[in-house]
């Protein structure tokens, strides 16, 4: 296993087999005490991570920083392209070739789809995709899987209801494909204009699953083991009134949780903008802050594996 991870690019979750993902999740479990600061590690001492964020991202960037630092490594880079040579019109390819010579591993967030694959093409060092536009965000998928596995002991057999913008939110597509691969049962809840695209449904069905499609959260929430909430973006609606109506229908509050399973967990990639009422935070269902924390041990495991410190 170790030989397959060392030096590997992490661009798309599809590049990983189920066994490989399971291996990452298992190692991530071991990283938790270090991620919490309860134990110290020098696993990646002397290693440098180049962190290139062409787009703002609080959670992803900070959790990569935390992961690298907790393992004794160092981080250099930028968190907005202004001031960087990018602003002067340098190609991504050139920036990557330069940064490649300054560090041992590159973490890239970029607004253009396919940017991470391109970076991997030009870099000799491994590249980790920290989100490329509407494209892939494999470490988010891994931390989502980690959270479900941690809370539910296994992913298989759980009924996962995914609600929100299922059409444009491509990270939802990789997550749902991964969940199907792990044997979860899926239900997609969205307004008709934002439902899961046919190709993705087909991809999941080809794995031998029959996901449910619904327009009503009330109808399906009672049977859910996991409720995965995503943002519905205002920009998707030409009419603001229509947006308000739709956003209101899918808002999670205490009333919505009246008849749910006692051990239902609610997840959200954050930041939320009103999809989950703050009153839900104090319930036994809320797991989105744990989920955000889980980004650290999962990214630690990946950094350790790719840089060869972990087997």
């Amino acid at each position, binding site marked *: 296993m170790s030989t397959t991870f060392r030096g590997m690019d992490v661009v798309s979750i599809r590049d990983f087999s189920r066994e490989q993902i399971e291996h990452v999740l298992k190692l991530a479990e071991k990283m938790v005490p270090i991620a919490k600061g309860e134990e110290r590690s020098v696993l990646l001492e002397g290693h440098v991570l180049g962190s290139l964020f062409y787009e703002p991202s609080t959670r992803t960037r900070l959790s990569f920083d935390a992961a690298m630092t907790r393992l004794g490594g160092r981080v250099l880079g930028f968190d907005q392209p202004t001031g960087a040579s990018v602003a002067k019109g340098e*190609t991504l390819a050139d920036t990557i070739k330069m940064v490649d010579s300054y560090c041992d591993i590159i973490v890239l967030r970029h607004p253009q*789809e*396919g940017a991470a*694959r*391109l970076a991997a093409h030009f870099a000799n060092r491994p590249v980790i995709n920290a989100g490329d*536009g*509407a*494209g892939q965000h494999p470490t988010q998928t891994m931390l989502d899987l980690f959270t479900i596995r941690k809370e539910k002991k296994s992913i298989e057999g759980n009924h996962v209801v995914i609600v929100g913008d299922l059409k444009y939110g491509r990270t939802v597509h990789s997550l749902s494909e991964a969940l199907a691969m792990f044997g979860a049962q899926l239900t997609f809840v969205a307004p008709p204009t934002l439902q899961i695209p046919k*190709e993705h449904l087909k991809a999941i069905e080809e794995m031998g699953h029959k996901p449910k499609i619904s327009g009503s959260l009330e109808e399906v929430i009672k049977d859910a083991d996991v409720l995965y909430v995503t943002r519905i973006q205002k920009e998707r609606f030409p009419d603001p009134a229509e947006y308000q109506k739709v956003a209101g229908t899918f808002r999670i509050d205490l009333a919505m949780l009246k008849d749910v399973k006692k051990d239902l967990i609610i997840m959200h990639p954050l930041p939320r903008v009103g999809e989950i009422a703050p009153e839900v935070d104090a319930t036994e269902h809320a797991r989105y802050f744990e989920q955000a924390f889980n980004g650290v041990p999962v990214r630690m495991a990946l950094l350790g594996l790719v840089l060869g410190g972990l087997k």
Partner: protein
Amino acid sequence: MKEFKVTPIRNGTVIDHINVGMALKVLKIIGVGGNVNSTVSVLMHVPSKKAGWKDIVKIEDRELDPKELDKIALISPNATINIIRDYNVAEKFVVEVPNIIKGIMKCANPGCITNQNEPVETEFVVESKKPITLRCVYCDRVTTEVADNVR
């Protein structure tokens, strides 16, 4: 000899069974513009014995290179290439859609990094040949809109 609607050519290439309406695209692909020194004839919308209608392009004194053949396959997967030598069909083959397509078309996804000014060739994996379905290696976008994106 057959009956020809245009003057027969001694040596050259006949691209037959082009999807109807695609002849001009074929001309663009093979670079037939103002400065050609040989005869090029185009037959558009002619009845096809196989099915419906087709276009035909005949170029004198020229054979096609592999890149051109790949492009023609993308816009017209049933096109037949006839190499004419001394007025006769010396070779005949159907174009073939390759498994990997490099550099000859652009990605249909405007948000794709390959549509920026990056020094990289586009690359697509052919997921299905009938109908032609391509997946961009960079942005992962799957598309069947091929003809408009061939360069």
